[in-house]
């Protein structure tokens, strides 16, 4: 059975992602945190990116470094940070340090009746930081073409009597 994924902006500074998994918390924790599994799930094949390297020392005080390549990017992209708090099998907190004003991410695994509710909270340092993340995330090609369509339509409606 495939469970739904929800994403919500719960405050000016926070995005929350949820999903329920059909398995106990210790299993979801293991799947989430071991590098050989991270390599499989962090970069979905449909996004066209591939892992160049994946290092993750999922312990309090440990660090991670994910490096990806994409056919459209000349240089590989690196994402890195530190694990601030790791409490198996219920909680992992880490920083995102590849850019200024990155969020603090907290994932929790809550087991109930053999299923696990995963809640990922990404808390940005300010409203502006989250707004800017959203704005820069929509400069991709699909976003830009929507914007041009919108503008086209406006200009056509202006030109008509």
């Amino acid at each position, binding site marked *: 059975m*495939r*469970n739904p*994924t*929800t*994403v*919500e*902006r719960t405050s000016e500074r926070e*995005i929350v*992602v949820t*999903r329920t*998994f*059909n*398995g106990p918390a210790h*299993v*979801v924790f*293991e*799947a*989430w945190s071991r590098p050989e*599994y991270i390599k*499989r*799930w*962090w970069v*979905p094949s*449909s*996004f066209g990116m591939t892992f160049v390297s994946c290092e993750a020392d999922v312990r309090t005080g440990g660090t991670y470094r994910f490096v990806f390549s994409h056919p459209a990017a000349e240089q590989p992209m690196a994402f890195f940070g530190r694990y601030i708090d790791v409490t198996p099998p219920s909680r992992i907190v880490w920083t995102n340090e590849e850019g*200024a004003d990155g969020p603090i991410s907290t994932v929790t695994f809550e087991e109930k009746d053999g299923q696990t509710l*995963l809640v*990922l909270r990404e808390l940005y340092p300010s409203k*502006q930081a989250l*707004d*800017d993340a*959203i*704005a*820069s*995330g*929509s*400069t991709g090609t*699909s*976003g*830009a073409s*929507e*914007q*041009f*369509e*919108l*503008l086209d*339509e*406006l200009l056509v*409606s*202006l030109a008509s009597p």
Partner: protein
Amino acid sequence: MVQLRHAPLDVSFAALSDPTRRGILERLGQADASITDLAETFQMTLTGMKKHVGVLEQAGLVTTAKVGRVRTCRLGLRRLEEEAAWIERYRQLWDARFDVLDEIVAELNRGDKSKDRKERPTP
């Protein structure tokens, strides 16, 4: 388009009634630009350019984002629509990730159960 139905058209018309603002849109159609770039291109003060960009932003024709110390302007959807679109794309990313995580959890679960069976044979 769906977005247009919700856009306040009179605000958009007012924004487009000015030749400088139409010029700004044409310019941003070629590439994103900072307020300073735009002020230079249109030989205008920063304050004057900020006002024009503000009107275009209000109309949902332009969005601005601060990158470092520079505020960059680009053709854009209205903020709420843009945010909804971003959230949906973000949801699709996590949904795809979680589908793979589902498979891994199922594999690990099977491993757990086969271990259980070894310890406690099923009748």
